């Protein structure tokens, strides 16, 4: 996300602060994505609670869910960046 930001008008110290915070956010973002993916795939693939262990059909579904999400995530991330760049083009400063 770093390259989406206009930090040119900040001084060195401020830039470091922003980047440090960005670092923290990215750790949290990864965690959120991870936990969100678990929730999504769980809702998508786990439909009954007759047993305590995952069944074959369920693990297969989870695998496809993760793979598909990765593909989805990559595509949407790329599109997002393209669009965001486009909108940010008129130079600020």
């Amino acid at each position: 996300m770093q390259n989406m930001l206009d930090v040119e008008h900040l001084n060195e110290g401020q830039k470091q602060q922003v980047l440090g915070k960005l670092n923290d956010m990215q750790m949290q973002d990864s965690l959120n994505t991870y936990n969100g993916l678990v929730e999504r795939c769980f809702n998508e693939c786990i439909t009954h609670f007759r047993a305590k262990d995952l069944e074959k059909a369920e693990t297969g579904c989870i695998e496809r869910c993760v793979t598909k999400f990765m593909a989805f995530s990559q595509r949407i991330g790329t599109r997002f960046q393209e669009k965001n760049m486009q909108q940010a083009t008129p130079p600020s400063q």
Partner: protein
Amino acid sequence: MNAPPNAEQIDPVMVAVTEMQGLADLFSRMQNVCWSKCIPNVREGILAMGEMSCVDRCVSKYFDVHKMVGEKLQEQMQKAQMQQPGATPS
């Protein structure tokens, strides 16, 4: 209270951080919305052709809506500042 407290509190670091959080939040909402609109199931582990173009259009429309809502909001706020609130509850 002698100096306007707000003037000092506009911290450029905070502004940049809030901006980042705004972008991150926008992205995560868009991701959720476009997933539910474009990915009906996970029967296959890959994106189908139709799903791909749905995602592309979803992103495009999401940005347009985002921009449009921003403009509309500003317009409304200006209008609201011009005229005092008139209508009152029943």
